[in-house]
C-alpha cells in the first residue's frame, strides 16, 4: 500500500509540473508572437534589419524563437576603411531582397554595424569583419553556422547556398539586372552614331586603314598578353611581399600572372611588332638614305632587344628553360 501511495504522489507531482510548464509556455507565447510581429514589421520596411546591441540581444539571442536569423556583422562606417564590407553588404542585400517577398516568418536577415553594436562583437569574440552568422531557432550557433567567406567567398549565390545548407530554406537569388553595362554600351553606340552623323560629310576616317589596323592589333595584343585571363581570374595588380616589403611585378610561376606583368607583355609585343613594321617601312621611305638606315636599324633593335626582354621574363617564370637571347 505504501508504495502505491508513493506512486500516486509521484504521478500527481508529475502532472502538476506538466500543468505548470504549460502555463509558462502560454505566458511566453505572447512575447514570441510579438517578437515575430516586430521582426515582420521591420522586414517589410527594409530587407535587412539594422540592429544595435540591445535589439540584437532581444531578437536574435532572446530564447524562445521559431525563426532563424542570418546576421551580417560588419563595419560600414567610412572611417573603418573596410572596402570588403561594402561589397559584402551589396551581396547580402541581394540575398535579403530575393527573400523579402516570400512572406514567411521562418528566416530574417539582420545586420549589426560595429559602430552601433560593438558589444555584440565582444560578446561573440569577433575581431574581424564582415562575418556572416546563422542563429538557429533552437540552441546556440555551431561552428558551421559561421560562413567561411575565406573559402567560398561572399557572392550572393554562395550565401544563398550556405543559408540553404543551414536552414533548408531555398532562396532563389534574383539579381537586379545590371543596367550599367547596357547603358554604357547604348551610350557608346549613340556617341559613335552621333559622331558619324556629325561628320557625315567627312567619313574619311572609316576608310583609314591605319585606324582599323590599330584597332585590330589592340584586340590581338590584349588577347595574347592574357587580359582575358585577368578578366576571368581577377589577379592582383602586383604582389607586395609582407615580410620584406619588396614589390613583385611578375608572378613567379608559369601558372599565374599579375596585371602589371600583362601590361608589360602587351607593350613588349607591341614594340616588337613596331620593329617589324619599321624595318619594312624603311625601304619605302623617300629621300635621305641615312634616314633609311637609321629606320632599319632602329626596327631591328626594337625586335631584338624587346624580344630578348620578353624571353628573359619568360625564362624567369618558366623554371628550367634553357635558352636566352642577348640578356640572361
Amino acid at each position, binding site marked *: 500500500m505504501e508504495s502505491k501511495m508513493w506512486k500516486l504522489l509521484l504521478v500527481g507531482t508529475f502532472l502538476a509540473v506538466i500543468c505548470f510548464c504549460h502555463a509558462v509556455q502560454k505566458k511566453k507565447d505572447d512575447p514570441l508572437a510579438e517578437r515575430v510581429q516586430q521582426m515582420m514589421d521591420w522586414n517589410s520596411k527594409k530587407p535587412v534589419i539594422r540592429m544595435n546591441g540591445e535589439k540584437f540581444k532581444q531578437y536574435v539571442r532572446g530564447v524562445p524563437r521559431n525563426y532563424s536569423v542570418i546576421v551580417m556583422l560588419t563595419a560600414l562606417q567610412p572611417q573603418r576603411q573596410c572596402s570588403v564590407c561594402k561589397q559584402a553588404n551589396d551581396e547580402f542585400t541581394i540575398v535579403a531582397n530575393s527573400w523579402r517577398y516570400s512572406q514567411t516568418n521562418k528566416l530574417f536577415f539582420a545586420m549589426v554595424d560595429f559602430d552601433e553594436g560593438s558589444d555584440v562583437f565582444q560578446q561573440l569574440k569577433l575581431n574581424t569583419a564582415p562575418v556572416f552568422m546563422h542563429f538557429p531557432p533552437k540552441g546556440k550557433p555551431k561552428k558551421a553556422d559561421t560562413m567561411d567567406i575565406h573559402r567560398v567567398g561572399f557572392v550572393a549565390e554562395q550565401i544563398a547556398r550556405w543559408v540553404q545548407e543551414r536552414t533548408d530554406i531555398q532562396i532563389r537569388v534574383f539579381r537586379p539586372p545590371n543596367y550599367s553595362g547596357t547603358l554604357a554600351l547604348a551610350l557608346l553606340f549613340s556617341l559613335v552614331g552621333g559622331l558619324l552623323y556629325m561628320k557625315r560629310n567627312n567619313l574619311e576616317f572609316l576608310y583609314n586603314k591605319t585606324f582599323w589596323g590599330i584597332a585590330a592589333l589592340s584586340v590581338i595584343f590584349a588577347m595574347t598578353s*592574357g587580359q582575358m585571363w585577368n578578366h576571368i581570374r581577377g589577379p592582383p595588380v602586383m604582389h607586395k611581399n609582407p615580410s620584406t616589403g619588396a614589390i613583385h611585378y611578375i608572378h613567379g610561376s608559369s601558372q599565374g600572372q599579375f596585371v602589371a606583368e600583362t601590361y608589360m607583355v602587351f607593350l613588349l609585343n*607591341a614594340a616588337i611588332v613596331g620593329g617589324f613594321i619599321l624595318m*619594312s617601312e624603311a625601304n619605302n621611305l623617300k629621300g635621305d638614305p641615312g634616314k*633609311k638606315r637609321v629606320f*632599319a636599324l632602329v626596327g*631591328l633593335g626594337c625586335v631584338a632587344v624587346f624580344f630578348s626582354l620578353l624571353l628573359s621574363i619568360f625564362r624567369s617564370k618558366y623554371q628550367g628553360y634553357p635558352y636566352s637571347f642577348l640578356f640572361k
Partner: protein
Amino acid sequence: MADTGIKTDIGSSMFNPGGWKSLISFVTLSLAWLVGFSSRLFAVIRFESIIHEFDPWFNYRSTHYMVNHGFYNFLNWFDERAWYPLGRIVGGTVYPGLMVTSGSIHWFLHLLHIPVHIRDICVFLAPIFSGMTAVSVYLFTKEIWSAGAGLFAACFIAIVPGYISRSVAGSYDNEGIAIFALMFTYFLWIKSVKTGSLYWSVFTALAYFYMVSAWGGYVFIINLIPLHVFVLILMGRYSQRIYIAYNSFFIIGLILSMQIPFVGFNPISTSEHMASAGVFALLNAYALLKYVQSFLTKAEFKFVFVAAVGIAAAVIFMAVVGLTWAGYIHPWSGRFYSLWDTGYAKIHIPIIASVSEHQPTTWVSFFFDLHILVCAFPAGVWYCIKYVNDERVFVVLYAIFASYFAGVMVRLMLTLTPIVCVSAAIAFSKAFEIYLRDDTPKTSNKPIEDTPDNKSDNKYYDKVGKTKKDKREEKPKESDALGINIKSIIVIALLMVLMLFAVHCTWVTSSAYSSPSIVLASYNHDGSRTILDDFREAYYWLRQNTEDKARVMSWWDYGYQIAGMGNKTTLVDNNTWNNSHIALVGKAMSSNESAAYEIMRALDVDYVLVIFGGVIGYSGDDINKFLWMVRIAEGEHPKDIRESDYFTPQGEFRVDSSGSKTLLNCLMYKLSYYRFGDLQLDFRSPSGYDRTRGVEIGNKNFELTHLEEAYTSEHWLVRIYRVKDLENRQITDKPVKPVKKAKKSKKKTSKKKQGSIKNKPKVVKGKKSKSKK
C-alpha cells in the same frame, strides 16, 4: 624540270626561274613534312609505338571495332561496356572522320598486301597529317600573300608547339586530322572567293564535310566564313564571285554536314549555325536589291531599300525569337556559352570547370606554344590591313577571332596556331624580301616567263631573291642606299631569331609534349632511366584475371583506358555526357565505406580502381583530383555531400592527422591508403609518408569491411579492390543485450517490468488519474 629531254634546253631550264621556283618549293615542302614528322616521334623513340593518354584510347578502340566489323556495324554499334547500366550508342555519338580515315588507309595498304597493324596506323596518323597540314597552309598563304610567305608558313606550322601538342605520334585524336581539314577548307574557300567558280566552292563544301566528320570545331568554319562574307558586304566589296562562292558552299555544305549522324539536324536547329543561314538570306537579299537597283530611279530605290531592310530585319528577329521560344532552335550549348560569358562555366558547370582544357590562357602559354610567332604575327595582320583585298579580310577576321577564343580557352590555341603561322610568315617574308635582295647591278637579263602576270605578289619570292626581277628598273639604284652591311646584319639577326625558334620548338616538343602519360619515366641521379609501366600492368591484370562481364568503377578519367586496355565494363568514362551518373560515382568515392557500399551494390560494381601516386610522387592521382569528385557529387546530391566537410577548419585540404574526419574516412581515402601505413619508403621518413603531398598520412590502421584488395601494381600506382558480396548472415558488432534494454525501457513505461501488477492504471499525460490518492 620537265624539259630535260633536250640537251640544249637543260642549260636554259637551269636558269629558268619557274623551274627553280617549283624545285625549291617542292624540296622545302618535303623537308617541312619530314621535319614535322620526325619531330613528333620523340615519344615513339623514347617509349614505344603506343596510343597515348585518354581519348585516343577510345578512338583506337572504335577504329579497331570498325576495322573488324565493318563501317555499317560501326555506325550501329551499341557499346554495352560503357556507362553501365546505360550503355552508349557509339555510332551516333562520335565524329567518325578519324576512324574512317585510318580505316581507309588500313584498307588501302592491305589492298597492296602491306600487312600493317591498325595500331601503327593510328599511332602515326597525326604526324603524317601534320605534313599535309603544312602543304595546305602553304597553299593558303600562297593565295593570300606569296609563295615565299607560303614556304615560311609551311615550315612554321610543321614545328610550332601549339600544333605539335595535339599531334605527336600516338596522340590519336580528332584534332590531328581536323587542323588539316580546317586549313584545306579555308584554302579552297579563298580560292573560290578569288575565282568565283562553282568548281572551287563545291570542293570547299566537300572539304567542309570532311571537317564536320572529323571534329566538333567545324562550328568555327561555319561561323567564320559567313562573317567574312558579311564583312565584305559591309565594306562594299560585294561581287558576283562572292555570291556564287558562298551560296553554293552554304547549300551543299549544309546538306552534307547533316549526313553525319552525330551532327544530325543541328545545322538547322541550333543557334551556333544560325549566323550562316542569316548571312545566306542577307546575301540573297542584297543581290536582289542590286538587281532591282539596275532599273529603278534613285528615289524609288531608296524607298524600296529602306522598306525591304526594315521588314527583313523585323521578320528575321521575330522568327528567331519565336522559334527559340517555341523550342525549335536550341539556345547555345554550355560549352559554347562559356566562350562568350566567361563567368558562366565557373559557377554553373563544375564538370566543365574541372577540365583543364577549358581554362583561360596566360600569356606564358601563348609564348610557350608560339614563341617569336606570337610577337611577329600582328605585323602580318597589319600588312594584310594595309594592303587589303577580299581574301586578306579573311586573314584579319580569322586572326582577331581566333586570338579571342584562344584567350578564353587554352584548348583553342590549336585553331589560332595556323593563322599565327600564316601572318608571322607574311611578316618575316616581307622583311626578308627587302633585306635579302641582292641589288648589285645584274650583268645579264634573263628572260622571265611570268612577267605579264598581273598578280605581282606571286613573284615575290625571297628564297631565290637574286633571280627576282623588279618592274621598276630604277629600284636597284634606290635600294642601294640601305647598303649591303646593314642588310646582312638584319638578315643574320632575323635568322638567329628564327634559329632560336626552331631550338625552342624542339625543346618544348621533347620536354613537354612527348609523354604518353600511360608509361611514366623517372630519371636517376646518374641519368639512367626507370620505366614505370604500372598502368598497363594493372589494366592487363584486369583483362586476364577478372570475368568477362566484370564492372569496374573508377573516376571518369580512366574509363577509356579501362575499356581500351582492360576490355572491361566501366561506369563512367571521358565522354562526360551524363553528369548525374558521374556524380553518383563521385558520391560513392566521397562517402564512407558503408554508404558507398550501398551505391556500389545498386550499380552492380565488381571492382573499384583508384590511382594512387603517394609511393612514387605522381601528382596526377585521385587524391589530388578528389575535390572535383566532391564538387561534382555535391552538385547533384547537396544533402549528402558537402565540400566544406572535406576541409580542415582552416579551410585546407590535408590528408595528414589534422585533416577533416570526413576525408580521412571516405572511400577514396581508404582505398588509396589501405595498408600504406605499414609501408616505410626510406629511413628518413616515417612509415606511411605520402611523397606526393609530402606528409605522413593521418589515418593509418584501418581495415576494409565491404571491399578487399585484389591487386596493387608494382609502384602502387594503380590499386584495384574487389567489392565483396553480401554476407550470408548479418554479423552485428555487439550482441544484443535484452536485459539492458529492458532496464532502459523500465524508466519510460513500467509496463514491461518483471512482476508488474496486473490492471495497473495506465497514466496518460494531461489526464487526471482515476485512482485516488
